[in-house]
């Protein structure tokens, strides 16, 4: 098995075998993370810097834990508070960090393409932890692992992604990944929250949720950002929940064993009914968090193998 990538910037450049390689390795790390001793030292001696230009608790914690379990030295930088405010450009920030010789750089940035730009300027491996509306590859990979473990396969499944597709990097990465693995993807949401040109993505688009959910294996809900709730994209929170919020009634149109996913954090009563989210027979939301750590461990290990100097060893 070869994983011939220097960076993990998105799902787009990955092949199905790349995806399978990450998920297979992640499976091992799920087992490891359930042991009392969760520590291996495959990244021992390496430095991982988490640069978050946008607030994040969950993703940052997940990457931090993943790095620590693999034995890397992990440093978190809250970029909002630092040099950006002083007018330093993204590239200067990247060059400054690069001079500290990190091996793995985990970056989240509010603008699409910013992580690609940064990756061109540094010598280490860069992991995209979310850039604007572009991609969030580790989220799609953890979703894939969750699906594969719950359904026993990651192909020929019917997956509905519901909600704010237009502004969601999670949706983009998932559409790409699920498509590459030969699943049927349905997108459900009001037209104001659908990206342009969506008909060319090889997906089915539904404006009616019950119709869209009919007989699907997986229901993936997306978070609706607070700032989009009032008037601009949808008339109101309550009308949105009425038409697109996942409740037992709407879920009954999916397959009886359909699983419910959400990348978190959830807005209970906006996009998802609390009782569905907590239903341990349907909801795999907690598993997604667990898979997140494992998938990030796997991705970082595979990238670390390709670091310069390591290849010769």
């Amino acid at each position, binding site marked *: 098995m070869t994983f011939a990538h220097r960076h993990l910037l998105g799902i*787009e450049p990955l092949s199905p075998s790349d995806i399978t390689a990450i998920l297979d390795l992640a499976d091992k790390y799920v087992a490891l993370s359930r042991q009392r001793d969760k520590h291996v030292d495959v990244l021992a001696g390496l430095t991982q810097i988490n640069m978050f230009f946008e607030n994040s608790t969950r993703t940052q914690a997940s990457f931090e834990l993943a790095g620590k379990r693999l034995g890397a030295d992990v440093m978190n930088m809250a970029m909002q508070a630092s040099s950006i405010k002083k007018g330093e*450009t*993204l*590239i200067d920030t990247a060059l400054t960090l690069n001079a500290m010789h990190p091996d793995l750089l985990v970056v989240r*940035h509010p*603008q*699409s*393409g*910013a992580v*690609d*730009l940064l990756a061109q300027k540094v010598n280490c491996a860069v992991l995209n932890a979310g*850039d*604007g*509306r*572009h*991609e969030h590859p580790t989220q799609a990979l953890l979703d894939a692992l969750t699906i594969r473990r719950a359904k026993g396969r990651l192909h020929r499944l019917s997956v509905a992604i519901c909600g704010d597709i*237009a502004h969601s*990097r999670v949706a*983009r990465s998932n559409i790409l990944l699920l498509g590459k693995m030969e699943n049927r993807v349905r997108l459900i949401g009001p037209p104001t929250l659908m*990206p*342009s*040109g*969506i008909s*060319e*993505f090889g997906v089915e688009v539904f404006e009616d949720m019950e119709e869209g959910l009919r007989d699907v294996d997986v229901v993936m809900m997306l978070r609706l950002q607070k700032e989009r709730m009032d008037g601009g994209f949808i008339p109101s929170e309550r009308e949105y929940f009425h038409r697109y919020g996942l409740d037992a009634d709407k879920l009954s149109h999916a397959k009886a064993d359909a699983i419910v996913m959400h990348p978190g954090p959830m807005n209970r009563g906006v996009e998802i009914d609390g009782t569905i989210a907590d239903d341990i027979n349907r909801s795999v939301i907690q598993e997604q968090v667990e898979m997140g750590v494992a998938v990030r461990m796997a991705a970082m290990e595979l990238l670390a193998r390709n670091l310069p100097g390591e290849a010769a060893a």
Partner: protein
Amino acid sequence: MNDTLFTNARLIDPEAGRDTTGWLLTRDGRIADHGHDAPPSVEGVEIVDCAGHCLAPGLVDWGVKVGEPGERHKESYASAGVAAARGGVTTMVIRPDTDPSIDTPEVLEFVTRRAQADAPVNVVPMAALTKGRAGREMTEIGFLMDAGAVAFSDCTAVVSDTKVLSRALSYARSCGALVIGHPQEPILSKGAAVTSGKFASLRGLPAVSAMAERMGLDRDIAMVEMTGARYHADVVSTARALPALQRAKANGFDVTAGTDIHHLTLNELDVADYRTFFKFRPPLRAEEDRMALIDAVRDGLIDTIGSFHTPQDEESKRLPFEEAASGAVGLETLLPAALRLYHADVLDLPALFRAMALNPAKRLGLDCGRLTAGAPADLIRFDPDVPFVLDRFTLASKSKNTPFDGQRLQGRVLSSYVAGREIYRRA
């Protein structure tokens, strides 16, 4: 002595629509005669054997940004002048979107003085339509015309207040001034970096529907109908806007339109992995739009092609795509880029020179851009076939933001002449 007899030349005559071998004689800075028979024997002139290379009117590049006043580090009249001479642009029609804007006769005089001192090519200025290009009060259109302004444009700052625009257009009509519009619905296109569609969605970039251009053009044409103003749309870049343009022309309104060489030679997919040198305003469009634009140039529906030369420094392009500045330098690449269309067999040379020399000159009331006897001897000699790979650091512009960096191009200017005087010869 500037009198020259060009022999053995492939004469590109956009007015006659001809591309045939012949000779051309210049006297006292003007074209004296040309023909397709044996060259006349004339005394006391320099004879230039063109060896079968093309001899054409120099390009009239409508919509060039020079960074004076305000941004001389991006482009000065000296650097733009050299770039123009090398690129075969003998007349630069400059944009008023400087800092401060060219919106008073005083600023216009400064610009004219700078241009005369430093640029070897003709410089013809446009002025802002509204003060500070802010869309609130019209400029001194009459005084500015007296000072030499050939047209009035707020460039990409669309006048969104239609009351202001209707008054400015009416007033401009009374002065006989040509008004340039930027056809774009300003609210819908706010914040957009690319054209909406699959590519924009894949890249997660803020996008504008191609329809915003048609909405802008429809509005402007309605304003023209209302006021009777002379109007030119700076850049039409979408297939959807073309029927509106066609209708306006068929209705007999005094309307013309241009397009940007980049929209004729590149499409939205060229942005690829967020390459900011491919960020334009309006943004690059779909391939179908590009094909429709080529047809429109061939049919004469689109009148002019310009480079919309927009120098940007490295810092303003080395940013995430959304934040990066728009535009590209184009004075030196206008001709080789246009020759791509010739080599692709979609436009012939007379059609290209009609759009890049004759039509802009005619629309702006200039007597250049043609090979007719009496016209100024603004000429270029070029080899349309010579291949090269563009290295952006070889450009004469102070700014190096070209989307053609590293690309294979064909066609080099061998000599440029302004008023019969050779201002550039390729070494």
